[in-house]
């Protein structure tokens, strides 16, 4: 277990570096939420999910939905690192002609299941996939990552009602609860707390964890698999901008990319030396 955790931590660090470099190059994209969600994404792609980068449509795969689609860079760096597409493609993020759209687009990017980014819509699609997999008697599971600010969208609660009504135990919802949204603190813009109580009241099995503690993420995902008759919702408490000290907990870095001046400092925070290697 400890070895697994250490390997995943190392991978998450590498992917954070990829996010920073990718966003610095693209000069457009969402830094804070990509960094807050990356430990969840890393644990899913490198530990929990059954998937095959050589065969993205493999029928036995688990499904991943990044409902908070603005954190696309987090998914893109993981997909590139896994080998779904060449790492060079990251250099074209958000550029004309690239398959890496500003928000995940299943039409062009291998490994992306559905189009997300218009907040509130991903969980409904995850539900649909979970229903289809159950009809097909598949043991594949569906993982959907939502933002906490995203919970302000009414459709999320429609979808939660349906996930619990249809007892979708092959669905695992993960809330990247970093507490911030574009206009400031979620609690001040439009409070969504208490999230765990609300999810429980709807009928979810709720597990609350530190979303940057890999061993807690693994334990929660393992526990989710054993629950029958209801979906599991993992409320992952995270830090927006996690890993780059001067980005952390700052709403202002929601949709801002690292400048030329910030790049070396950001990489330094992540333990990279000036030559781009690990210290």
């Amino acid at each position, binding site marked *: 277990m400890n070895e697994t955790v250490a390997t995943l931590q190392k991978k998450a660090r590498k992917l954070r570096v990829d996010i920073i470099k990718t966003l610095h190059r693209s000069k457009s994209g969402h830094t804070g939420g990509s960094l807050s969600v990356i430990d969840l994404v890393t644990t899913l792609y490198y530990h929990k999910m059954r998937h095959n980068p050589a065969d993205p449509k493999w029928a036995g795969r688990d499904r991943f939905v990044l409902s908070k689609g603005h954190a696309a860079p987090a998914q893109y760096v993981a997909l590139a690192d896994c080998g779904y597409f060449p790492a060079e493609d990251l250099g074209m993020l958000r550029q004309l002609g690239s398959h890496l759209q500003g928000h995940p687009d299943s039409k062009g990017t291998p490994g992306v299941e559905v*189009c997300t980014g218009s907040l509130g819509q991903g969980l*409904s699609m995850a*539900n649909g996939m979970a*229903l289809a997999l159950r009809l097909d008697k598949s043991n594949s599971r569906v993982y959907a990552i939502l933002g906490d600010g995203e919970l302000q969208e*009414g459709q999320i609660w*429609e979808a939660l009602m*349906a996930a619990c009504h249809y007892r979708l135990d092959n669905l695992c919802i993960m809330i990247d609860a970093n507490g911030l949204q574009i206009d400031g603190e979620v609690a001040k813009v439009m409070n969504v707390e208490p999230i765990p109580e609300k999810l429980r009241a709807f009928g979810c099995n709720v597990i609350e964890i530190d979303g940057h503690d890999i061993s807690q993420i693994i334990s929660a995902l393992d526990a989710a698999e054993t629950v029958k008759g209801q979906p599991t919702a993992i409320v992952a408490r995270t830090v927006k901008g996690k890993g780059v000290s001067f980005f952390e907990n700052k709403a202002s870095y929601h949709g801002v990319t690292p400048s030329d001046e910030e790049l070396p400092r950001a990489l330094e925070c992540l333990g990279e030396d000036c030559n781009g290697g690990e210290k």
Partner: protein
Amino acid sequence: MIATRDAYGEALAKLGEENDNIVVLDADLSGSTKTSLFAKKFPERFFNMGIAEANMIGTAAGLAAAGKIPFASTFAIFAVGRAWEQVRQSVAYPKANVKIVATHSGITVGEDGGSHQSVEDIAIMRAVPNMTVIVPADGIETALAVKAAADFKGPVYVRLGRNKVPTIFDDTYKFEIGKGVMLRPGTDITFIGTGLMTAQALVAADLLQAEGISARVIHIATIKPLDEEIILAAARETGAIVTAEEHSIIGGLGGAVSELLSEKCPTKLKRVGIKDRFGLSGKGDELLKYFGLLPENLVEAAKEILAEK
């Protein structure tokens, strides 16, 4: 006479036998949309999503992403209005294989009134990229269109009605997405109808015939992609067009035909439809009269345009 929604319910239940991948969603209106027939036969493949249309459309997109062929039904006002952004983002943008079959379209919803009468859904769906828009005229065409929609890969919007409408096609009719059909030849003017207005156009053509005016009647079920050829031929050969739809004159069939002809064959044209206003409570037939959607209104429009010709 059969309501297109009844034809839909029967066709869907039959399709369910032929194809295990067909799944059906409804938002608490299955008795009205007639998806209840499918639900009774295939309860495990039917999902009532409650009064939550946005989630219904998103769920349909997810089912499609996992290989199913979902048919999602509710009233047109909710499928297109309430869930528009889900239709755009979750269905049309990814080209999800979702069939949105909306019933109770237009003013013939009747007594429920303007809040429930969609007069703008064709315009809205037509403007969405990747969306195919079909408005069948009768029960026979509805059954064929539903089958064609299931066989077609990609998003389809099918617009159906509440009330019984005359049957104008017979069992020999071959429906094809994107193809209009000439129901009656004519040389002086052309009526282009869609949905229940095609039957009104046929009656109008009879009335004109009695006065020695030869009116062609074209039925356009697929508003998008539009059968340009049949419309351009009619414009060239008859030189006058009257469009007829149970929908706003803005952005629907009349809009589509006007756009086409303005660019490729400018022709005298009049649009018969709802004149940029909301519906009202009343009986369906009374409302068709009130809003000027009867054969005599089409005759009047034809004569006006012929006087200008």
